[in-house]
Each structure stands twice: as structure tokens, then as C-alpha cells.
């Protein structure tokens, strides 16, 4: 992977580079460089397969992290591009023109995280939720437990045990835990 990241480094200004395995590395790039890097990877380096596009909500730092994982079939290796965008103004340039399948990922990210990809096909349509009115549910400030308590009927009598202490009490009763 070193050869590849070195080559990329001479062309683009890259952020952190983490090499996880011989065939997997992650590279941080600035949002406005992403399209250039990923197009280069696809057309020059042979990373023709978009494996996934996901997001992580770093609420403490006020950022969303997008991960674009692409795969090179002939050399059987993957590279992940990490992009950090602002959480409040969550907008990112789409890559649906490079891989049409990316439009589906982008629609999902719009619905679940509220990250907008202007111009992506059907980006404003509902994806899997129907009639959702709250904030996007994968954002970490969405309290799923509270929402479930307010929205649904619950059957009383549900008990929760901490598995470790519960099994200890059951298997070794009388012993101080």
C-alpha cells in the first residue's frame, strides 16, 4: 500500500494515512479534494469498485466523517478515503456521476444523518423511513429510547439485568459480588 499512498501524496495534499493491513489503508482528504482523489483512484489506479459510503457522527467535534471505500479488483486491495465535514452545514459534493450506485448511499445518508448531496438523484425522497418527522435518527443527539417511550405502547413488567452480575448471582448465590 505504501507505493500507492506515496504516489497519491506526490499528487495531492493528504491528511493522516493509516495502513491497517497490506491490502487496506485509510487516508484523510479535504472535502474539496475528495472528488479529484477518488476520480484519480478510479481512472488511473484501477480502484473501480465503490464498496461503501458511510458516515460517523462525531458530535463532540461538531463533525461528520464520511468514509468512501473503494476496491481494486486486479490487485485485490482497498483504500478508504475519510472526509470530515461540518455537522451544522452538512453538505457534500456527490459522486453519483462516478458511480451511479452512490446515489443510493447518498439518499440513505440524507435520511439517516441529514447530510445533503445537492443534485443527487431523488435525494429528497423518503428512503426507508415513512412519514418521519423527527430529526434524522442516526444523529447521535437523537434519543432513540426517549422517542420509543413517547411514541409506542409498552408492556409493563419488563426487567433488565446486567448479564455479568445476574449470572454471578445465579451461579454462585451467597458470594459477595
Amino acid at each position, binding site marked *: 500500500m505504501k507505493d500507492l499512498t506515496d504516489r497519491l501524496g506526490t499528487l495531492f495534499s493528504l491528511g493522516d494515512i493509516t495502513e491497517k493491513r497490506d491490502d487496506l489503508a485509510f487516508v484523510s482528504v479535504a472535502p474539496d479534494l475528495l472528488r479529484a482523489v477518488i476520480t484519480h483512484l478510479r481512472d488511473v489506479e484501477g480502484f473501480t469498485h465503490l464498496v461503501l459510503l458511510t458516515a460517523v457522527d462525531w458530535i463532540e467535534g461538531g463533525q461528520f466523517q464520511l468514509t468512501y471505500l473503494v476496491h481494486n479488483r486486479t490487485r485485490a486491495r482497498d483504500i478508504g478515503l475519510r472526509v470530515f465535514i461540518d455537522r451544522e452545514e452538512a453538505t457534500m459534493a456527490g459522486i453519483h456521476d462516478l458511480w451511479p450506485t452512490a446515489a443510493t448511499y447518498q439518499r440513505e445518508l440524507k435520511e439517516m444523518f441529514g447530510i445533503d448531496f445537492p443534485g443527487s438523484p431523488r435525494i429528497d425522497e423518503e428512503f426507508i423511513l415513512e412519514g418521519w418527522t423527527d430529526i434524522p435518527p442516526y444523529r447521535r443527539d437523537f434519543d432513540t429510547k426517549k422517542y420509543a417511550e413517547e411514541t409506542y*405502547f409498552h408492556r409493563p413488567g419488563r426487567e433488565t439485568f446486567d448479564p455479568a452480575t445476574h449470572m454471578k448471582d445465579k451461579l454462585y448465590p451467597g458470594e459477595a459480588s
Partner: protein
Amino acid sequence: MEAFVKPGEKNRLKERPERPVKQELQPRVVKTPDGQEITVEPLKDYYCEAPPRVHPPAYAKIVEDLFNWARAESLWILGFGTGCGAIEMRPLMTPRFDAYRYGIQWRPTPRQANLFVISGYLSVKTLKRAIRSYEQMQNPKYVVGLGSCTINGGMYWDSYNTIKRLDRYLPVDLYITGCMPRPEALLAGFLELKKIIKAGKGEGANRYAENFDWYKANQKQVIHDWDMPDYSW
């Protein structure tokens, strides 16, 4: 039947914005193959507007008992799988557990089925489809809730997207506990359901008709984009 209770203090539905009717449901003018122009109003034309009715038992107890015996011995399950439990149906219908020897078989459409096995968690989106399928089944019909998820939410008890108590939305005749229940548990459950039906207690469809407003109010409380008629028979 309990009074209609709101879960939690705040009713989120109050704040929900009006949603436009989906395009395929809007009234429109279409041209028939022989050139006539007709107006179709999908919500009116494609569904029966009358709410469900309570079906009284037969004129004599002995006749009703005969009917119930016949109903119990031909449980036809709607092939509609939700959640993980649907996977247990496959061994059940194939030679290893062979539910067919009890007069139980699977049918592809709601019209041909009289038993709806809700086989696990129901997301709000699936609930909508489940309600429509249930309403299209012919009377008498039965609902079995399979697994913890239908009983109290199971491991999805704090999920934003699944209902926690099936019996608030559909009339449940029987629950089978477990996560997930084995095919043997299902067979035991079906035998139990037969006893319930033979005793004349499998009255779910009538309960649904009697408390129709209560069920509808509960259903609409979670299904925010209600774009179907109240009774989609």
C-alpha cells in the same frame, strides 16, 4: 378493552405537517382502451368503504361447534414474513417438521389465508402492510404473535422504528414466546390455537370490528403517512 391511552405525555402527532396525497392515489381522468374518458378516484373506487361488521355465531351451538371444528382443522397461513421468525417457517413447512399433517398450510395471498403469523418485529413501515394484509383476509381470521418482539418489543424495545405491543394494533389470539421460537414451539402454539378456536374463543376478527375505532386510532398514532382508506378490504 382498555380505554385509548396515549403512550407518554407528549403526542408527537399534533405537530405533524399535512402531507400531500401520493400521485397514484389522486383522482384523475384516464382513457380506456376503447377511447372513453373516465374519472378514477383510487381511494374510493378500489376499496370497500364500509367498516368491518361483527359476524354473529351460527343459529345453534352445535352448528357453531361444527364450524369451529372445521376452522380449527384448516389453518391456512398467510405467507408474509416479518422479522427473524419468518425463517422458522421454512423447516416447518418442509418434511422435517411437516406442519401440513395438522391441516396447516401456507397460502400466497391474504384472500386465501385465515391465519396471520406476525413472525417478529414490526417496523412502522411493515405494520402498515400488515394491517392492509390483515384487513384483506376473510373472516374468520386469527393472528398469532411470534417471539418477544411482538409481545414487548424484545431486543428492539428501545428502537425508534418498531412497535412494541402487537395487540394494540391487531387483535392477537395467541402469543408464542421465545427469541426466536423453535418450530416445535410453533407447532405447540398451533395446537393451542386449535383449542382456542374449538372453544369458540378465536374471535379476533369480531374484536377488531367491535373496537374498530380504537384500533384505527392506535394505528394512526404511529403510522404518520396514512395514505390509504381506513378499511382496505
